[in-house]
């Protein structure tokens, strides 16, 4: 059983967390966006093997945050709250 660090609640059981997608996948803004831009935002994923920056939600407290982890070793490198600015 792996513990994930919620920036608000501290280390908690992995089953309390839900994966939310690539960090930095910002919703496109503007009226006349090409359809591909929407498809990229909605569907395309980096899905890296190794170092990854991802959005997760701690379902228990409801907070979203950015977790850096290795998708092969599952080592967690950092876990930071989402600020007011975009998580890049």
């Amino acid at each position, binding site marked *: *059983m*792996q513990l994930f660090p919620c920036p608000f609640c501290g280390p908690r*059981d*992995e*089953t309390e*967390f*839900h*994966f939310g997608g690539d960090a930095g996948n910002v919703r496109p803004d503007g009226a006349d966006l090409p*359809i*591909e831009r*929407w*498809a*990229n935002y*909605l*569907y*395309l*994923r*980096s*899905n*890296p*093997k*190794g170092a*990854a920056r*991802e959005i997760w939600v701690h379902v228990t407290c409801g907070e979203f945050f950015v977790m850096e982890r290795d*998708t*092969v*070793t*599952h080592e967690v490198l950092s876990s930071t709250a989402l600020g007011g600015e975009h998580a890049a």
Partner: protein
Amino acid sequence: MTRRYSALSLFKEGLAGQTGWKQAWRSPEPKPSYDAIVIGGGGHGLATAYYLAKNHGIARVAVLEKGWIGGGNTGRNTTVVRSNYYYPESVELYGLAHRLYEGLSKDLNYNVMLSRRGMVNLCHSTVEMEMGARTVNAMQINGIDAELFSPEDVRRVAPIYNFSPDARFPVFGGIWQRRAGTARHDAVAWGYARAASRLGVDIIQNCEISDFIIEGGRCRGVRTTRGTIRAERIGMAVAGHSSVLAAKAGFRLPINSYALQACVSEPVKPILDTVVLSPGTGVYVSQSDKGEIVIGGGLDRIPSYAQRGNLPTLETVVAGLLEMFPIFGQLKLMRQWAGIVDVVPDSSPIIGESPLPNLFLNCGWGTGGFKAIPAGGTLLANLLATGRHNDISRPFDLDRFASGRLIDEAAGSGIAH
């Protein structure tokens, strides 16, 4: 001297002390160029090479596999073969695969041990029963065999299920596909490899693709751990590693990679002669020909390339199994393992040209591509040979994500995701 398998060759080899069997496929050195390259020596890659040679007469083909053939998901799955899908596009695809499976042992001269033992998807409430009736209707309208089972029917095919009045997942009925069943997964890989090799295909193992050769905006070959190999048509069928190779080719895919686990018990006497899936527990189970209980469940919850699986999901699967079959509480688990599967938002595969011209995709089969191997191979071979879709592969092109014509089988096919 024995090349073709038959009752007679078995008999002769018996007399000769089994000394005459030949290697099932050749292991040649890679040539500098081919007419077509197939990346990935799983079922889909090997089948692609076989159908390129057989259906299109293109035999200057190399299958490049980084490890050993069938060492990916093809050798790690729970071997269920069925075609109980919902949408017409999927019916065409999985129906083609199922039909080819039924003639495969003969076609390949290799026994893939297809066993049409039937499969029941259980319904645990009146609502699930209504959805079950809808699925059965859809399948029948599409010409796929399906039956709506009553609780008594389920009891007939799976008498050891937990039918007690206080069962947590009571049986209201089920969706039955009689032609569904299992096949020997290694044999599918080996059978295609042998048949392709006999038609002249080079199967090259321990050959990892590290990069693509891109000239004039087109893919012209690959760089590998065994040198540079060129071709004007390149297909890739690397399952959970599709995003890794896509990144090298300069594009992204609508895929997340997850571990999917399975486990088997010690072998016991025959006790379950069908495949049983419970959407309530998310667990499905069958008994192998050796007697092991083969147990599968849902995806791991964490995107991962760690080919081992995590404990919480295994616990959920085993707990679910015991809700379904309390009698299995005495069994010892022998092995647990995982494969890395490529999960797509609409749970349907991606078949078509990639954003890099000359490079074609066969991926996104996720948790369910074993049953589809003969179709995936036929369709990728057709794309590589002609450069164009046929009617069956067209809906599965990558462009469906921009056009919004998704084929959402997550619920329709009853797969545990």
